[in-house]
């Protein structure tokens, strides 16, 4: 049975391998180049010195100049990187959806289900082979992209905890890929034709991904609040902390949000242009900086939760798919 599943799907496995190889051809040289530049600019040592605390002293070097230089050179890479977000979906569309749908669409299920192997066994082996290939591909992909993105994340602009960047590295892509394959398989048992199954996979995948990312992920654990003064600031936020900042702004003494999406820190004896620090922005005395965030130290925990949710949904879908296969004809 494993022989059959492999023989049927080896072409797709080959295409997957070619896809990964092409990805490596792009990522390895650019990744190495980024690392070289990163080290040449002295960012390695600078970032290490910053540590991972959320707040650092106001006079600490935030590696700003080198970071800007680095991001100016490699900023376009992050755009290319966002394209990688669709890869798990592609695996679901081209591995998962046809797995059962094509058999039923072409009628070959009537041949293979009347040999000496039960449908349950047939389904488990097919799912196993598809799942194993998807797993290998997504592990390679997840770890590879993590390696590739590290300098960009450390340079501060796109922390690995941020939306999009969180989604394309670590273990999360493994969860997405297995989920996409399971969704495709299940859709194929409900709509036993390849194109409807692919459409359903597309809609279902994007739906759950977007819903979880925007509605659920910020609340996997209660977010923390950080406040620090506008005036007489002795501390500033650490760009290397890798915190996921959900929202931030400046509140007045009563706690009312005065200026959203802004952060001001004035040194003890600083003044603004012709006035007290921040007066032109409506900042009054007693105002303070406020931010709601998930600390960077929770990154792997959140990766685990995200992956776990998608793997659990995938397991449920596969269970339902096996049940349906036992009952459809």
């Amino acid at each position, binding site marked *: *049975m494993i022989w059959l599943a492999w023989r049927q799907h080896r072409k797709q496995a080959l295409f997957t391998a070619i896809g990964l190889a092409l990805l490596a051809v792009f990522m390895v040289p650019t990744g190495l180049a980024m690392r070289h530049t990163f080290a040449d600019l002295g960012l390695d040592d600078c970032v290490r010195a910053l540590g991972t605390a959320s707040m650092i002293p106001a006079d600490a070097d935030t590696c700003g100049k080198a970071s800007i230089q680095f991001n100016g050179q490699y900023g376009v890479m992050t755009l290319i990187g966002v394209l990688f977000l669709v890869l798990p979906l592609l695996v679901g569309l081209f591995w998962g959806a046809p797995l059962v749908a094509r058999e039923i669409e072409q*009628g070959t299920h*009537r*041949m293979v289900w009347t*040999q000496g192997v039960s449908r349950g066994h047939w389904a488990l082996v097919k799912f196993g082979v598809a799942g194993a290939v998807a797993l290998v591909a997504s592990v390679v992909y997840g770890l590879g992209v993590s390696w590739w993105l590290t300098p960009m994340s450390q340079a501060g602009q796109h922390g690995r905890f941020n939306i999009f960047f969180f989604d394309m590295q670590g273990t999360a892509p493994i969860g997405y890929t297995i989920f996409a394959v399971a969704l495709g398989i299940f859709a194929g048992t409900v709509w036993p034709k390849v194109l409807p199954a692919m459409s359903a996979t597309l809609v279902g995948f994007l739906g759950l991904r977007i819903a979880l990312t925007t509605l659920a992920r910020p609340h996997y654990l209660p977010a923390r609040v950080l406040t620090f003064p506008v005036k007489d600031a002795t501390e500033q936020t650490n760009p290397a902390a890798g915190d996921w900042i959900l929202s931030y702004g400046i509140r007045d003494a009563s706690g009312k949000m005065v200026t959203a999406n802004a952060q001001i820190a004035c040194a003890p004896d600083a003044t603004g242009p012709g006035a007290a620090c921040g007066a032109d922005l409506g900042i009054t005395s007693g105002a303070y900086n406020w931010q709601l965030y998930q600390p960077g130290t929770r990154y792997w925990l959140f990766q685990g939760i995200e992956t776990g949710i998608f793997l659990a949904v995938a397991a449920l879908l596969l269970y339902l798919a096996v049940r349906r296969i036992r009952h459809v*004809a």
Partner: protein
Amino acid sequence: MDIVLETDQLGKRYGRAWALRECSLRVPAGRVAALVGPNGAGKSTLLHLAVGLLRPDAGTVRIFGRRPYDDIAVLSEVGFVAQDTPLYRDFTADELFTMGARLNRRFDTALAHRRLAQIGIPRDKPVGKLSGGQRAQVALALAMAKRPRLLLLDEPVASIDPLARREFLQALMAVVAETGTTVLLSSHILADLERTCDYLIVLHASQVKLVGDVSALLAAHRQLVGPRNGGPLPAGVAHVVRAEHTDRQSTLLVRTNAALRDPAWKAYDVTLEDLILAYLGDGDSRSHAAWEVPA
């Protein structure tokens, strides 16, 4: 007499429509049985129930006394060639046989190779590139290599040309003669059945209309020609299957239960085709009602 396939009040429903209902029949061992009926009569449904692809909604179907849906082990005794002979089109015949050998406990790869060699079908070409007739032969070889005691074929020759059809049926007959396998073959090409089958099942509008040994059925039916409204039916007529009337005479296809001796009626032997058409033309009162036209 061994019974290979037996159904009892078997029914299958799709939504609210019955595709097959109250189907009770037996196929004895060693027969080549024809399953005949128009499209949509329930032939494929009956075969799919017999091979465990479908679960009955009513009644039972048994193969060698076992229920195929619940007991798939019995499938090792059954060869099945589904409609349009579905095969993995990118597989070569050799690869399909490898698949058969890996999916079945008993699989005679050498037999399959020998059969294809006899008819000259390339074993190393993807079956999607073979002709329809060749593909049907590969499907038959794949089914026969299981050395089944029952072979089920769902319209195996419907989509291939007449020459390939004859070759296919010849191949089938050769296999049957060699192995003694019981065959149940659905078709709506009546001429083919006359040459190949010795047992007949007529399905019409989801119900069994006629079952039995072909020669016994032929012996038990007569075509009667007599004057229009020629008075009472002759003694020996069990019932009239179909009646046609012109201005001057009536033509009846009747089932008999004794010899007919009435000089007013001329009796003729019937062919298998006459018999099948008479039972299929029996009228489908339900569909007439559904269309709201008089039967």
